[in-house]
């Protein structure tokens, strides 16, 4: 079934970037995990790379509007989220898969995603069809009426992706979505990402450089809360050059080479 397109969706956008950060600072506990980040992202699949503790999760959480910026500006879909604004309209257009995806074990996949659709204030009449569509897109149709606790780790992850896309978001935030997926499922996931990236701003935070090289249209590399590099995936391979950085593929070597050069200039 083709979903109805609302007037709000076809209206011309009045902003240049889906996500725009200037000198963004976000605190995680006592630490300033994102510290002076400048970043612009629009429609497409953006791979967010960086070492552990680089501030990837904090950045994704701040775009999901659950962490408020401590400084700088963050503009999402043309709305500045620093001030005291009504987040409801903005959040309806965001899909979010947290790093620790928690779920209700006794719910079936369909019940859980319907619950999330309700949380996202979707119209009750559209919900069953939207839930079915999301389940089909992640390939869980045959398990839709099984309880969440009977699913394998990879299936839970896919259910997590389904709940994120159920409201057809304009901004889709996936924090470590490929953890627990087997190689075949990862290939399917990359195809889904490419499909979503045609009309959505997808931000995928990951450790896996090859996922980014294969499925992303844009690479964002951050370290210690700052932007290190932004460019197309081919840049990563090119950056490797004759540099003998650590890594098995050209993209991995490029990743470690860029990171090392950045750290050398910082120190």
């Amino acid at each position, binding site marked *: 079934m083709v979903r109805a397109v609302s007037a709000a969706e076809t209206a011309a956008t009045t902003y240049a970037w889906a996500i725009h950060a200037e000198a963004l600072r976000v*605190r995680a506990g006592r630490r300033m995990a994102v510290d002076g980040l400048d970043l612009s992202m629009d429609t497409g699949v953006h791979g967010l790379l960086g070492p552990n503790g680089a501030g990837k999760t904090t950045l994704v959480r701040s775009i999901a509007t659950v962490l408020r910026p401590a400084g700088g500006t963050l503009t999402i879909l043309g709305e500045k989220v620093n001030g005291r604004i009504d987040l409801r309209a903005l959040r309806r257009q965001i899909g979010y898969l947290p790093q620790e995806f928690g779920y209700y074990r006794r719910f079936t996949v369909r019940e859980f995603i319907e619950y999330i659709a309700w949380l996202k204030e979707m119209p009750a009449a559209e919900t069953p069809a939207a839930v079915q569509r999301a389940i089909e897109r992640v390939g869980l149709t045959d398990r839709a009426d099984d309880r969440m606790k009977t699913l394998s780790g990879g299936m839970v992850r896919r259910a997590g992706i389904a709940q994120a896309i159920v409201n057809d978001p304009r901004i889709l935030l996936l924090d470590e979505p490929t953890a627990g997926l087997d190689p075949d499922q990862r290939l399917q996931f990359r195809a889904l990402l490419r499909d979503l990236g045609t009309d959505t701003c997808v931000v995928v935070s990951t450790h896996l450089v090859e996922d980014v090289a294969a499925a992303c249209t844009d690479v964002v590399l951050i370290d210690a809360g700052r932007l290190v590099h932004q460019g197309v995936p081919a840049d990563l391979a090119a950056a490797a050059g004759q540099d003998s950085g650590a890594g098995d593929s050209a993209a991995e070597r490029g990743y470690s080479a860029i990171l090392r050069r950045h750290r050398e200039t910082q120190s």
Partner: protein
Amino acid sequence: MNLSNHVTTAALERYATGGAGIGADALWAVEVHLDSCAPCRERLGDAVARHSPETVSLLALVQANLASEVARSPRMHSRRLPRRISRWAPPGLWPRLAMTLLVLAAALGLDLAASSQAFPSLVLLVAPVAPLLGVAAVWSVGLDPAHELVVASPRAGLNMVLRRTLAVLIVVIPALTVAGWLAGESPARWLLPCLAFTAGALAFGELIGLRWAAAALALLWTAGVITPSVLAARTPVLLEPASLPYWAGLIAVIAVALVLRRDAYTGLRSSTWFVR
């Protein structure tokens, strides 16, 4: 029925058997009319049944095939109770509510066993903090597995917190009323303190997190009121009817504070959402 405004029977019969012998313009007119005219569609059904046995058998085949497909595909709807209730109470709440009822039953048991008039009623002493066990689970990372999803959703906020708190009160207050009635205590004595502690936990929770706020208030009441009252064997002055106006005033103050800082419930606890 005025037939001059409708498709003639002859045209309908020709249409039903495949449209041979009708001009393209007349065919178009018949279809446009059928689109908007239920009586003519019904006549068309009769015409098909009488004049076109192959169409009838085709439709029967389609119906049989579809029926088996529909039976195999997953059901769109399974209206089950948990889904409805989950909109009011997160699944993690049930064990805590059960524990609350157990505590009340234990207090009531001690009251009935003691049955001396001098000793203060334990049900009355426990009543103000009874909802806190459930309230702690309403909005906390550790007790709601999908907490981060809930917090990031458009519905997150004070409304959602109050909705879930109501679910707790709907279970706890009737239980307290029954226990209080059996122990011989009127609801008038404990209802306002009970609401004040619930609202206080929610307001305090905006600062330090609901789980810690509920724990701190319950501890404070236990150490400051329950223990001395049991040791001195007298009903505390805070639960005397004379102090009810103060409780009402306290609830009003707390309600204002609760609304002023409501933004705290739209962000994660690790944030400094409310520090400006």
